[in-house]
């Protein structure tokens, strides 16, 4: 009835997707049930893998989750963070920049 969206080239039908998702879920459950049962809870197998070292309180807090990703983009992200300088003068400056850009684009 009202479930399908036509998007020019194809369509998006949520229920068909759900049926497919259920199929995949069943498949994975089947695979999972064939797996080995003896997972030892409470042993070292449960600790998060902190690149091999032994860490006494291995709780991977929120900031650490993307430590690597953020570190790789350090120069770009630092510059982006400094753009948000908190000084109102800069914000008005950006407004003036956009005003100039639109004026140039439209008047020139």
């Amino acid at each position, binding site marked *: 009835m009202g479930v399908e969206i036509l998007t020019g080239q194809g369509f998006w039908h949520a229920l068909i997707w759900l049926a497919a998702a259920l199929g995949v879920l069943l498949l994975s459950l089947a695979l999972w049930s064939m797996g080995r049962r003896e997972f030892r809870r409470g042993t070292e197998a449960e600790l998060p893998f902190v690149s091999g070292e032994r860490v006494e309180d291995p709780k991977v807090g929120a900031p650490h989750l993307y430590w690597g990703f953020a570190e790789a983009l350090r120069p770009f992200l630092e510059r982006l*963070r400094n753009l*948000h*300088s*908190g*000084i*109102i*003068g800069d914000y*008005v*400056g950006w407004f*003036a920049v956009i005003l100039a850009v639109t004026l140039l684009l439209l008047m020139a």
Partner: protein
Amino acid sequence: MIGNLPFVVCMILIALGLWTLLAKRNLIKLVIGMSLIESGVNLFLVTLGYVRGGIPPIYTFAPEGAPMVLPTPQALTLTSIVIAVATTALMLAFAVVIYRHKGTLDTRKIRDLRG
């Protein structure tokens, strides 16, 4: 050129106000810069309605046959002034509260909302 001199003055006022916002660091001066821009825009609005040799657009005891200045821009300017009063009062109130917390009005030092 003399005809649209008022419009040039308005643009100068607005540019001056914008410059104040960019250059000045004191919160109160920013509010003053804002009121500069407001007066520039309001002046521009009022001068739009000017009719050469027109009298204020009021019928009470109006001389016969005199052309009248357009009343609509004046009404717009009135509303804009009312809004300007409200915005300025709100900004000044927050400036006072910021001063009470931080002890300074310098935008360079009021920066703990970064990142």
